[in-house]
């Protein structure tokens, strides 16, 4: 890499933006070290507080802009949860809202140039997905007992097919956290890496305009993806939660 740079070739380092670095120098990364992960997650919390707490401070009947955003977010997640899981799912609204807020704000903050996007890391999204997976599985067994296993026994299918379907259902159940986490991390990482690659091409004057246009277009797509992936993550959480609350097909 270094020799290529010295030779004046294109230098692509699309993955450098995902490096975890300690904030205050040093190279040791212990579990407690304040890193750029800490910084950008802290900024995410700050943004959430700014929009959802400070923004709704007025408690106005006719809302201000900030309060409108807070209310729209609240209303969207609330409606999604109620539509999919029904009334008894609303108990888990704060958890779902926490996930949605964290992902959507982290995604958007990650779109700021030179920022670090926390949701592009498998470690982060895997923890989010495992929280959902474990929570939903435990909740399913606590609520329904052994009846929760009925989720894998498709009673509407013909009897000879049921064992086969049960195997498929079990596999798809355990693939859930994998796809759940990789979808989010993959989307965010892919978008950022592609933008970075286009940025690398911008070093050549002849194709710089095309490259900058492409960056702009990709950025627009990424803004869309940031919201849609948060939405999808939340809606899948709701669907899994529905399976735990009503395991019958």
């Amino acid at each position: 890499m270094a020799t290529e740079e010295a030779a004046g070739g294109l230098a692509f380092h699309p993955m450098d933006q995902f490096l975890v670095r300690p904030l205050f120098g040093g190279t040791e990364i212990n579990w407690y070290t304040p890193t750029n992960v800490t910084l950008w997650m802290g900024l995410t919390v700050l943004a959430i507080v700014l929009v959802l707490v400070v923004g709704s401070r007025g408690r106005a009947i006719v809302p201000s802009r900030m309060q409108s955003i807070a209310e729209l977010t609240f209303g969207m997640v609330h409606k999604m949860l109620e539509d999919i899981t029904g009334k008894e799912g609303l108990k888990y609204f704060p958890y779902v809202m926490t996930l949605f807020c964290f992902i959507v704000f982290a995604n958007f903050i990650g779109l700021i140039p030179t920022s670090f996007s926390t949701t592009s890391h498998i470690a982060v999204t895997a923890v989010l997905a495992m929280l959902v997976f474990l929570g939903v599985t435990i909740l399913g067994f606590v609520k329904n007992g052994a009846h929760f296993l009925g989720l894998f026994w498709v009673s509407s299918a013909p009897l000879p097919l049921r064992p086969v379907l049960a195997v498929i259902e079990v596999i798809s159940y355990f693939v859930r956290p994998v796809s759940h986490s990789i979808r989010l991390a993959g989307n965010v990482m892919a978008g950022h890496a592609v933008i970075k690659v286009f940025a690398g091409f911008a070093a050549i004057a002849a194709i710089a305009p095309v490259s900058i246009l492409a960056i702009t277009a990709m950025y627009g797509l990424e803004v869309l993806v940031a919201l849609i992936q948060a939405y999808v993550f939340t809606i899948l959480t709701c669907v899994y939660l529905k399976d735990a609350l009503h395991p019958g097909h």
Partner: protein
Amino acid sequence: MEGIAQLGQYLGAGLACIGMAGAAMGVGNVAGNYLAGALRNPSAAASQTATLFIGMAFAEALGIFSFLVALLLLFAV
């Protein structure tokens, strides 16, 4: 020897990216069929947006998997 391994990595990464074409077709299919249905019965469209996004997410996940395979081949092997 190392060169051949690297060649294999890059070729494999490129081949893995073909998988994304399938995901693209899948997502397009979901969105197109949703639009066709929504134009036939616009009143039922709003209630099905959640299903649309879930379907798109599932279709897209497989494309992301192939992208991931490409990345793993490029960077992690």
